[in-house]
């Protein structure tokens, strides 16, 4: 790479000049600022901003960085936060931190990289993983694992394989190279995501309590160190309007349209940062993500004592033609910023050198209350940092319930609209049809591209369980309930492992906030999630909002992806899907109602989306979790019921194990069809030695949960289901037939 400085004569817009030339026309509108926002900047500064200041404000006050449309709603997560001692660091930091006992803490967060993944699926997804990992690292934690929640367009659409293969290779390529096991996620196909695929990546990390680090620059005289990759012209499309004015005839080099990740650099960054933490050399730290140096400097300064001086000309560049405005806004990946006491600087530089990471002191903490940025000898930014980082505009955008929602909700999947299977054979065919559908088939094509074994020794005895879930169709039927159902599913997923759910992170993917109907969906989803978290006692510790996921006037389904983190005080007591033995009893815990709206059966068999989604019952979810946790020594395996209901859960148990199941519904009130395909909440199938059945069922009764003895685990290869209309028999090979081939078929 060419790093020889080319001397380009620049016309620098200094603070001094800004003071004396109030009437210069500035391209604030091209930078996405509204007239009143530009005026506010002038009011704050008491003069016009310099072009560098304009660059900083415009990017920091963007939707992406300032959450200006969502902020008023997100406040509910704080206002309705349940009382819990577990939360060590809450919303507002890079990621929330949760106490898991014995002096250990865990931090986790999910973030979106949706639009970049549509433009360039591999790099978009890869840099998404890179970004969330740096967030976790910036909290002081060692990143332990990643997860990914993915949504693609229709399985049969021509563009879908391009996006899926690129995204999966990108998530895998980046995460595998960092040595972070991928511990799960989701992959959902639906035509509503056609031009707007969703790539949400989660990272979880662990640390000792005393190692928690915050993003703040305090201590006058402390040094500001930028380390990691050199700064290039990535992600600065917007500011080119500023750059173009400031170049002479030679003009700037072309700016990249896509950011490329360098996972090897990130791995070095992780190791070198962890070594600095271990030696207690870091006073404050921040990753560089969206808005790059603009964000890192203004946030560090405003969370600290306020004063910071930065010499922008010291930033190591990949492209010598970058203007100061561009350097401030560059989103080049794999960079971090640390605040270091002068006594420790030599050691920090040594560690970076050992890991072959470029590190540069670019500034220091001052006792002034301003963030001051210099370009050589010129002062080009002189701002109160809070006004950039925290005091951005806040909009209370208008919203209203969509007029079409009543019609959609009354379009229930009745027996007239969605005829039910009439015979046992018919039901058998529909089980196979569901198993072979895009959203329920085997994900091995995808998961086998992710390393899941590295770092086997991270167990500290304690274990953590994380699940990421959402069903966008439920959100489309009722966003309030949809958000709670996502929470409910993730909570249940964690609970069936025997873990105690502790905390929540979320990624809210929606259409345009400027559409009042979309804004209503957003507001409802947030309200639902906040209410649900309060009731479950699991606080939201952080998350991400992704808006404008829409093509023309068509928005994606409201897709609030929810991540729940749980803890096991001893991993050896965890429950898996694999521990059952022949002759074990199979018990269904939880109540089944006739609930098909938004479910897989209506979607796959009838292509129907209408009605009201399954009823939320968070009290029952809590009870289910406590019964499973308290009886985990008796439970040999467990599987939660979610997409596709009991039919899919039973099939998966047979598919993923070397035993069969023989069940019937004699012990239940509902008909076989409802039992098999309903998606009622708060249910799980557990297996246990026959002598423990009574203990488990008594425990269920004690907390008011119905339970039913379904049958037994058998030593053969069959799923056999006895119904009033005859016996449904499915061999493992028959179950696997469509299930194991669908994903590869979609990809070909």
């Amino acid at each position: 790479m060419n790093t020889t400085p080319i001397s380009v004569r620049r016309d620098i817009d200094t603070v001094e000049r800004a003071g004396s030339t109030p009437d210069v026309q500035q391209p604030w509108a091209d930078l996405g600022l509204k007239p009143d926002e530009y005026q506010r900047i002038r009011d704050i500064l008491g003069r016009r901003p310099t072009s560098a200041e304009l660059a900083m404000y415009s990017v920091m006050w963007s939707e992406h960085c300032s959450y200006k449309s969502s902020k008023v709603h997100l406040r509910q997560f704080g206002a309705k936060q349940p009382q819990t001692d577990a939360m060590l660091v809450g919303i507002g930091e890079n990621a929330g931190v949760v106490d898991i006992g014995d002096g250990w803490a865990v931090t986790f967060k999910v973030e979106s990289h949706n639009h970049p993944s549509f433009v360039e699926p591999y790099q978009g997804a890869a840099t998404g993983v890179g970004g969330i990992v740096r967030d976790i690292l910036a909290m002081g934690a060692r990143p332990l694992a990643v997860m990914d929640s993915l949504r693609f367009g229709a399985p049969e659409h021509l563009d879908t394989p391009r996006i899926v293969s690129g995204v999966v290779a990108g998530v895998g390529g980046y995460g595998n190279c960092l040595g972070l096991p991928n511990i799960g996620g989701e992959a959902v196909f639906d035509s509503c995501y056609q031009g707007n695929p969703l790539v949400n990546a989660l990272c979880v990390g662990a640390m000792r309590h005393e190692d928690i680090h915050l993003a703040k620059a305090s201590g006058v005289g402390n040094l500001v160190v930028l380390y990691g990759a050199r700064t290039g012209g990535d992600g600065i499309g917007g500011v080119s309007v500023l750059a173009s004015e400031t170049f002479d005839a030679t003009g700037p080099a072309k700016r990249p349209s896509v950011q490329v990740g360098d996972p090897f650099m990130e791995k070095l960054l992780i190791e070198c940062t962890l070594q600095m933490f271990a030696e207690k050399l870091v006073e404050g730290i921040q990753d560089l993500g969206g808005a790059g140096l603009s964000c890192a400097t203004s946030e560090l300064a405003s969370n600290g004592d306020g004063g910071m001086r930065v010499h922008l000309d010291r930033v190591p560049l990949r492209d010598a033609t970058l203007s100061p405005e561009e350097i401030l806004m560059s989103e080049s990946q794999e960079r971090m910023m640390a605040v270091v006491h002068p006594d420790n600087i030599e050691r920090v530089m040594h560690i970076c050198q050992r890991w072959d990471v470029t590190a540069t002191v670019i500034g220091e903490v001052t006792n002034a209350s301003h963030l001051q940025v210099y370009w050589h000898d010129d002062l080009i930014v002189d701002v109160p940092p809070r006004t950039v980082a925290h005091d951005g505009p806040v909009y209370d955008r208008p919203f209203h319930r969509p007029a079409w929602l009543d019609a959609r909700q009354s379009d229930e999947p009745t027996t007239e609209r969605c005829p039910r299977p009439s015979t046992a054979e018919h039901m058998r065919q529909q089980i196979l049809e569901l198993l072979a559908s895009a959203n329920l088939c085997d994900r091995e094509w995808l998961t086998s591209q992710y390393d899941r074994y590295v770092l086997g020794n991270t167990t500290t005895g304690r274990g953590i369980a994380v699940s990421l879930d959402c069903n966008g169709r439920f959100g489309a039927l009722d966003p309030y309930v949809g958000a709670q159902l996502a929470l409910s599913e993730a909570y249940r997923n964690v609970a069936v492992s025997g873990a105690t759910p502790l905390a929540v992170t979320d990624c809210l993917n929606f259409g345009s906030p400027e559409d009042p109907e979309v804004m209503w969906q957003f507001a409802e989803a947030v309200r639902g999630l906040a209410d649900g978290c309060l009731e479950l006692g699991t606080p939201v510790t952080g998350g991400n909002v992704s808006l404008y996921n829409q093509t023309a006037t068509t928005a994606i389904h409201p897709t609030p992806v929810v991540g729940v983190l749980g803890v096991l005080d001893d991993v050896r007591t965890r429950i898996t899907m694999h521990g059952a033995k022949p002759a074990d009893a199979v018990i269904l815990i939880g109540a089944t109602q006739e609930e098909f709206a938004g479910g897989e059966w209506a979607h796959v068999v009838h292509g129907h989306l209408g009605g009201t989604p399954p009823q939320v019952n968070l009290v029952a979810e809590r009870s289910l979790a406590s019964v499973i946790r308290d009886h985990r020594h008796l439970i040999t395996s467990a599987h939660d019921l979610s997409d596709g209901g009991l039919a899919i859960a039973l099939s998966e148990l047979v598919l993923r194990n070397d035993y069969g199941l023989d069940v019937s519904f004699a012990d239940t009130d509902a008909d076989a069809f409802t039992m098999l395909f309903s998606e009622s909440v708060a249910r799980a199938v557990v297996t246990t030695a026959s002598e423990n059945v009574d203990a488990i069922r008594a425990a269920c009764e004690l907390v008011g949960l119905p339970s039913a003895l379904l049958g037994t685990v058998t030593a053969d290869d069959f799923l056999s289901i006895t119904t009033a209309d005859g016996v449904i028999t499915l061999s493992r090979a028959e179950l696997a037939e469509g299930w194991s081939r669908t994903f590869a078929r979609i990809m070909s």
Partner: protein
Amino acid sequence: MARIVVTVMLKPEILDPQGAAVRGALTRLGLSGVSDVRQGKQFVIDLDGALDSEREMVLTKLAGELLANPVIEDYQLRVED
């Protein structure tokens, strides 16, 4: 028989971590003054018969759609004999 060689390189403004790694290694191993290394791909395509204009058109199109990702890469096509 015709042989066509397509070379694909990342656009100059796009970060090339592979090239950077090679640059570091070349320098460490004693090559002085390496100012830049870019790593790309080369495809050697052998065709039965001659490269008529129709096949040339198809190939040119596929070079830009399949062999290279025009969002981040440039490509060159040359006919060898």
